[in-house]
């Protein structure tokens, strides 16, 4: 029970990171972006490439950090992968979404996002192969927190949770303390007024892709660090991140964070009553429940 809760919180922190950018993109560009979760995959694999590169260039970096399976090279790679993924997100927007939103309706964007997701996922498969990979093949030993009930936690998991929370806190500071943050919130609340107030929308759209891509990359690495890398990982996060945004209310960053934890914990606890094969459907049930009870989410409000 408590073990499921702990695992759920960990998954939740990853889903939250993935959902933050999605909620902003869905709100600003007004379309459900099914390719967004592929950014997790892009980030995780980008980190893998950079990790191997750094390790080859400077073997010193292969030293492990404390009890973690995380090496210095990988830690460095996370940051590079975040930038890389953010820029990739902007490039995909330029190549596809920007051109479509200039001439067609929102449904075409949804449609295109499915196409983009399919392409990204299979390019990853083509390059890295279908089989699951690990950043480090060393076995990460779990620490026994308690024997009755049995509670196991890996140092990596603790690190991931802390790092995810730190990233969210950093974003919180940006949103609540800087004029850039105010501008971002302003665009989310009322984009035409934001324009009148001197905010350039296309710049903000790029910034949201950059932030969203970076946070998703971190989420992807964190997932891969505590589980494994696979080309399907983006696909597997599509429903959880959508569920988190819908639970939190589209456009609400804080809602997405809370929604992510709710989805993660609910999926963790669901394992107590459901065979694991059904867990991928859990976010769908959460979406249906939210749509029935509170269609605009916990923090969202009706638009249109």
């Amino acid at each position, binding site marked *: 029970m408590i073990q499921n809760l702990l695992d759920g919180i960990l998954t939740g922190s990853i889903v939250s990171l993935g959902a933050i950018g999605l909620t902003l993109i869905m709100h600003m560009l007004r379309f459900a972006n099914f390719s967004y979760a592929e950014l997790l995959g892009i980030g995780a694999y980008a980190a893998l490439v950079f990790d191997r590169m750094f390790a080859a260039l400077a073997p010193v970096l292969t030293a492990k950090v404390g009890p973690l399976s995380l090496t210095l090279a990988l830690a460095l790679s996370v940051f590079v992968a975040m930038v890389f993924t953010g820029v990739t997100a902007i490039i995909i927007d330029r190549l596809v979404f920007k051109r479509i939103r200039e001439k067609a309706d929102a*449904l075409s964007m949804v449609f295109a996002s499915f196409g983009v997701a399919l392409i990204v996922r*299979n*390019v990853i498969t*083509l390059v890295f192969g279908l089989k699951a990979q690990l950043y480090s093949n060393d076995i990460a030993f779990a620490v026994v927190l308690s024997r009755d009930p049995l509670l196991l936690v890996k140092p990596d998991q603790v690190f991931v949770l802390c790092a995810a929370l730190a990233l969210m806190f950093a974003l919180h500071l940006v949103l609540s303390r800087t004029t850039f943050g105010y501008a971002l919130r302003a665009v989310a609340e009322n984009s035409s007024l934001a324009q009148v107030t001197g905010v350039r929308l296309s710049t903000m759209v790029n910034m949201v892709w950059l932030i969203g891509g970076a946070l998703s990359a971190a989420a992807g690495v964190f997932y891969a660090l505590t589980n494994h890398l696979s080309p399907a990982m983006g696909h597997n996060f599509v429903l959880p991140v959508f569920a988190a945004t819908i639970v939190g209310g589209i456009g609400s960053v804080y809602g997405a964070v809370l929604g992510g934890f709710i989805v993660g914990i609910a999926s963790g606890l669901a394992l107590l009553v459901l065979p694991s094969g059904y867990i991928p459907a859990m976010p769908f049930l959460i979406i249906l429940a939210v*749509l029935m009870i509170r269609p605009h989410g916990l923090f969202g409000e009706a638009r249109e």
Partner: protein
Amino acid sequence: MIGLVSYLAFFATMASILAIATLGLNLQWGNTGLFNGGVVAFFGAGAYGTMLLGGHPETGQFGGFQLPFVIAFPGGVLFAGLIAWIVGVLTLRLRHDYLAIATFGVAVAFEAVTRNAEWLTGGAKGMRGFPRPLEAAIGDNFLYGLFFLGLVLTILVAVYVGLERLAHSPYGRVLRAIREDEVAARSLGKSPARLRLEAFIAGSMIMGIAGGLYTAFYAFVSPQDLAPILTFQVWAMLIVGGAGNNRGAVLGAFLIWAAWTLSGFALSRFAPAALQLHAGSIQYILIGLVIVGMLLWRPQGLLPERIRPTLTGKGAARTSAPGEFQGGQNP
């Protein structure tokens, strides 16, 4: 010779089944502007529903009622309609892309059930053995293949004619009015929510028809037959043919299925061994490129919709509600 005819019949049967599914999607997306992100689930509901009702009983498994095809098949179709009704009631009154998310979710949930609920679906090994209609009476495999093609073509024509009539009826015009401008449709005294729900259910049932025929054709169904790529394939068929045009939907289905089959053949024949493993991925990328490329360069498809929309630009009044956005953004 017989081999070639037999293969062509096989090809045409599959293409026709997919064309029926594409027609169902056209009713939803092309005519009514509803986004179905889980075509495979409704196709699958028809397939599994038909199998459960008409298949052989298996020990330790629910279903296998061995009902005659004329009952099992409509039963599967109704099952697809039932799922559509539940999803539609919950999501059609909300933001248009909630339907996309919910239908995508249905597909994920459906896959989870087909893979895991062994007592119901046989799990990953699927369900085998289905008394195909009139198979015993016809006997010969080759002739039966031709007969089945005839059956599928008859149903395809019936669905096509039905949808064409619908599109040109007052009802079809109202559906288009909803797609273009919901406020105007409401002012005609129609309830857009109700009509959208009807169109969504009807389209999903047509996909269920395709699924039921698929089961009957192979006498077998498993989660592998219902991979998520099916949804993408059907979309590609519609967008290539031309959303809103039933003839385009059928044309697109045949073209994309031919391209899919040929690319699979070419990859297995000519691609270097190293690439063989990845043939599937390459095909998937091609489907993705077809979808994105069509949206970017020829969104109206090969056969554009013949009845021009009433407003300039698709759904100018509503869907471009972020007009302030577009207006302000383009330099």
